[in-house]
């Protein structure tokens, strides 16, 4: 369950940034998670609820923005959606996709007091 490791990193980043901004508490942590990143968002939420205790985000929430997968077709060269890593190009229905979007794992912003 690597989601707990990720949540620890998320809280480390959030607390460091919140302290730098002289904040007292973290109300919300906004993160971006690529749909193809190999991460379960429910598990992230579950771990966050457990891990936030005794941090500046003790009463904070985790808001996950899912970044849809996109890739370039290895056959016809068109850019298109990738619902999974081995998705076929929707334009030609022949090539698999070189993924260029959808693997993100990023803390985008915080809401702090």
């Amino acid at each position: 369950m690597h989601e707990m490791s990720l949540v620890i990193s998320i809280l480390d980043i959030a607390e460091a940034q919140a302290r730098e901004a002289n904040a007292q508490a973290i109300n919300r942590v906004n993160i971006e998670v690529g749909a193809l990143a190999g991460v379960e968002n429910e598990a992230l939420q579950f771990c966050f609820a457990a891990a936030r205790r005794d941090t500046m985000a003790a009463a904070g929430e985790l808001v996950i923005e899912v970044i849809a997968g996109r890739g370039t077709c290895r056959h016809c060269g068109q850019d298109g959606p990738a619902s999974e890593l081995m998705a076929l190009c929707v334009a030609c229905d022949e090539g698999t996709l070189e993924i260029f979007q959808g693997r993100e794992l990023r803390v985008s912003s915080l809401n702090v007091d």
Partner: protein
Amino acid sequence: MCDTCGCSQPAEAVTFRRPGTETPAHSHDHAHPHDHDHGHDHQHEHHHDHDHSQSREVKVAQDILQQNDLLAAHNRGWFAGRGILALNLVSSPGSGKTSVLERTISDLRETVPLSVIEGDQQTLRDADRIAATGAPVLQVNTGKGCHLDAAMIQRACDELKPVPDTVLMIENVGNLVCPALFDLGEAAKVVIISVTEGDDKPLKYPTMFAAADLCLINKIDLLPHVNFDVDACEAAARQVNPKLEFVRLAATTGEGMDRWYQWLRDRRAASGGETD
């Protein structure tokens, strides 16, 4: 914060041991109880309607894995500076990673010096097997952790002190999911699948096959006895990763091992290490 269970104790459950040593190099008893009393209710006693007049947005834009990736980059530089070819071996439990390593160490004893970092949740068993071959080995026990990370490899290298111009095999925790996300600073990921598993595994665990450079298909001596289509397996893996290379082998009989050794020698030459 402990990242094995999320409790508020420090994350020190990971141990680093050499075979033949009784106590971990860095011991930690992880004595905190996991049976919390559940006295807190889950009714969200905090209210979301409190006045946020003081609240403000702070822009962050930081990769969650940044700390691991930085340490991995440090490891990669450390390996490159010493001409060490580091490989990250990943697979399900039971695919034969340790058997492949045992055979490789024995067969290449005279030509390619190897050392090994063994990752498992518990026990020195794999490290003992490697130690019996005579290769330097360090066991990392991750406790409840499901993967090795770059910090563990940095610390393991401090203990193991791999010799310059050698090959360092990092046998990750048997798990086709979590290790895919954690860069250790390796030159390549080698994913191992055995023919006693399903040939559709690349479709079930695409993230790992997408991240790998080489796929070893092990236990091919058992092909007559199992329902495993090697071509279908390779085709499935190529669907997620067209650049993936394959070697079909059997660590117990030695069949196909030569191609794996050739791949190792080629990689070693490319990484600046000595060739034979």
